[in-house]
């Protein structure tokens, strides 16, 4: 492999960005080379410069970014000195790219078939006579069912996995030699991730293409790539064959990344860097914080036969009424869609229950219903002996019960008011529902909470955009525990975080639970993350529970086919 001329050779590459605070070097003197037919993974956490490297190769950096030093040689030609016109011929025809968030990567108001045709026509791969046939043929190659029909579809009419297939079709339309896949499966379900990745590997192998896979997921890199490049803060810290790098990581950062990745057979505390324990949270004071509650098997939350129905798209009641003549009205069974279809489960005091399933399975609907943000269609939700399902969501917000059920949201950035400081965000529930009066007392409570969640007190006066992802997650957690709730619903609290930050946040959640005696309802799509934190797991599919049991039992001896499928779809580094 090494004696042949590499297809892509990056030498001493430095990329700079002009920002308001001066020039920032996103990538510093990196060397990466890729042989023909090779599959290479670039692995790193956010800010490591892995995406910037690929943009530099394609020369599609933002206006503020530029290649400051070094060369990028693609089959013997220096890309960094090419004219824009030559570069355009290279893009899409020789090197193409797949992006994360496939739905946003497609033009929302152009038929997918036409978008594929645009690329074919641009690179003279099709004329106006045969472009439609060729576009349909490409859709067929990426295994899109009924390609003639999908040719006329708009991106919003397709699922996320289907959109990613279209993006792959765009990228492979002109049979390029190199494919750069930038987090191609982030945001997709694990089973979809598997089919998309298998498809990419199959198609690129078939065409003897080289592939660069950019990912934060070590498991994905190990499962699909020949070689792995690990990047940290704009530097390449390690390059090795994927078979060996996980067995014997040489660099400290690689080791740390490996440790932090949830995988079978490790405990929660194993995720933290060696010799490091969680920054110890101070013992809660007796006055403000809750007394430790006994974690006996007393049920806290009982959900019984819960149903949540939504009207189907395009069949809003008012419209149906308006157009009800000639008996054309939609049949009643079609008029509603059951997002949650009669599920029952119990969360005991001091227990953590995981709610797992893929997008659209109804797990978020379940959690928001339990949170009493939306009304139930039928069934009951009993919280500490009281039927809260019967209370309308509108009036629940003002009841004292509201204090006892709190939530940590998925996106730490979007769930914080950008105009509130961290302290104001944490104080918000206290001001709305708490019994602490006086700004000094509220401030003291905020500081206490900040210490509890390991947020430096001096950061309390910062705004969300001045905090890192992990710090924002801590603010979200502090806000949720501010009123000493009995039940906290965690809605994918670490999905947007890097693995090393995720490891710390998961450990923090575990410590807090033990200290404050809370119960968790942990909503996630990742069984391996859920396993670390939860005593019991509920697996949902299409609005129903397919399996429920203790975490160990579900993970080691899954009963339902669907659970097995989910477990098998998650790629893992060979440990």
């Amino acid at each position: 492999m090494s004696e042949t001329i590499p297809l892509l050779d990056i030498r001493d590459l430095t990329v700079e960005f002009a920002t308001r605070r001066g020039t920032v070097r996103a990538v510093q003197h990196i060397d990466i080379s890729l042989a023909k037919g090779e599959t290479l993974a670039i692995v790193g956490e956010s800010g490591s410069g892995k995406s910037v490297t690929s943009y530099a190769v394609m020369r599609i950096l933002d206006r503020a970014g530029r290649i400051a030093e070094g060369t990028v040689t693609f089959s013997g030609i220096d890309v960094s000195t090419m004219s824009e016109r030559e570069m355009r011929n290279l893009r899409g025809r020789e090197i193409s790219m797949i992006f994360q968030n496939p739905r946003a990567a497609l033009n929302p108001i152009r038929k997918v078939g036409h978008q594929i045709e645009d690329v074919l026509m641009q690179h003279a791969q099709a004329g106006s006579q045969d472009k439609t046939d060729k576009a349909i043929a490409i859709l067929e190659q990426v295994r899109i069912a009924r390609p003639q029909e999908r040719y006329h579809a708009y991106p919003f009419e397709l699922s996320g996995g289907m959109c990613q297939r279209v993006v792959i079709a765009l990228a492979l339309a002109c049979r390029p030699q190199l494919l750069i896949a930038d987090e191609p499966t982030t945001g997709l379900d694990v089973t979809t991730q598997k089919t998309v990745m298998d498809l990419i590997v199959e198609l690129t192998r078939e065409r003897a293409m080289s592939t660069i896979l950019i990912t934060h997921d070590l498991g994905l890199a190990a499962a699909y790539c020949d070689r792995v490049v690990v990047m940290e803060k704009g530097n390449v810290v390690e390059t090795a064959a994927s078979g060996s790098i996980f067995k014997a990581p040489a660099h400290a950062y690689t080791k740390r990344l490996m440790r932090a990745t949830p995988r079978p057979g490790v405990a929660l505390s194993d995720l933290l860097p060696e010799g490091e324990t969680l920054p110890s949270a101070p013992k809660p004071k007796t006055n403000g914080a809750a007394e430790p509650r006994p974690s006996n098997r007393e049920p806290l939350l009982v959900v019984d036969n819960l149903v949540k129905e939504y009207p189907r798209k395009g069949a809003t009641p008012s419209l149906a009424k308006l157009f009800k003549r000639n008996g054309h009205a939609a049949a009643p069974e079609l008029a509603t869609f059951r997002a949650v279809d009669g599920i029952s489960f119990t969360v005991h005091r001091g227990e953590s229950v995981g709610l797992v399933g893929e997008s659209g399975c109804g797990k978020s609907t379940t959690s928001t219903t339990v949170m009493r943000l939306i009304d139930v269609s039928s069934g009951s939700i009993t919280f500490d002996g009281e039927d809260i399902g019967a209370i309308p969501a509108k009036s629940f917000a003002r009841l004292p019960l509201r204090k006892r059920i709190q939530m940590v949201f998925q996106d730490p950035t979007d769930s914080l008011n950008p105009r509130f400081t961290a302290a104001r965000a944490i104080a918000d529930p206290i001001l709305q529902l708490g019994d602490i009066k006086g700004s000094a007392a509220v401030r003291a409570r905020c500081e206490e909470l900040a210490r509890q969640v390991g947020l430096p007190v001096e950061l309390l006066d910062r705004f969300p955009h001045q905090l890192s992802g992990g710090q924002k997650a801590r603010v979200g957690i502090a806000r949720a525990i501010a009123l000493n709730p009995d039940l906290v619903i965690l809605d994918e609290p670490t999905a947007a975080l890097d693995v090393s930050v995720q490891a710390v946040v998961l450990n923090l959640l575990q410590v807090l639970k033990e200290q404050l005696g809370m119960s968790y309802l942990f909503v996630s799509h990742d069984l391996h993350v859920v396993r670390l934190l939860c005593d019991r797991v509920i697996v949902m599919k299409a609005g129903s529970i397919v399996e429920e049991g203790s975490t160990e039992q579900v993970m080691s001896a899954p009963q339902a086919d669907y659970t097995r499928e989910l477990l098998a779809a998650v790629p893992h580094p060979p440990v």
Partner: protein
Amino acid sequence: MLRLIAKRLLLAIPSLIGVVIVTFLLTRALPGDPAAYFAGPAATKVAIEQIRQKLGLDQSLPVQFVQYVRDLARGDMGSALTTGQPVAAEIRARLPASAELTLLGLIFSVAIAVPLGVLAATRPNSLIDHACRVVSTAGVSLPVFFTGLILVYVFYYQLGWAPAPLGRLDVFFSPPPQVTGFYLIDSVIAGDWGLFRASLNQLILPALTLCIFSLAPIARMTRASMLAVLASDFVRTARASGLSPFTVIYTYAFRNAMLPVVTTLGMVFSFLLGANVLVEKVFAWPGIGSYAVEALIASDFAPVQGFVLTMAVMYVALNLLIDILYGLIDPRVRIEA
């Protein structure tokens, strides 16, 4: 698509009913006594009372309202007290004048503002970007009557390029046979190019005045929306696929960026239609705006009611048009309908 149009039309009915009621009540609440005004300063109390009876103003409000609605259903908007002319005929004659002026102003404005906004967005902080900012700020901060007067001063008085600002046509011409009421279109239909030129000459200055005023919102919206779209993921995909700059900017970015601009256009048009009173005054334009203001000053119910109702109908029609345009641009809107 037809469903969307039908739904919009159905939704417009309650608002039109509301407009009928509110305009009726508002005109009744206006200060001043139409009977006294109509009778003249020297009239006796008895004479005023007689006129009041003749106008039906001695009846109770509900009775007056029923009468008003009944007339309206027959297409009768009443007659202006000051001129004695039927309001419906007057509006029919004047509305095309205002509409032609406003439309032409808007067309000028779009023709300048949209390319300006696109150029500014594709070259941020360049000369053209700064020019865009200066032009739009200046345009919006100068009052319409002022720009109008400046234009008249420069192009009529100083340079003599423009004809006298005295209405829709020079005195030497007579209007074309009415088909649409738009002189430009009617003169083309009649095949009279001299007339076309004459009416265009009259139109250019007032239309330019409106254009300058409406440049700012359109240019700024185009620029902002283009900037947002150019930074989006799908434009990056298009660039990464090697598509030509023209395809990226026009087919991918511009069509997406048009959505908010179309909304702004609708708002600007309806705003201009009602607010071009000043332009009509400056250029002695026989439009609907000046008609309504004169009626309002004279406490003349019928024209004011007719004006507000016409504007409401226009507004509904315009919104419908924009929704249809939206549906044509954005397939997602079609599905929701």
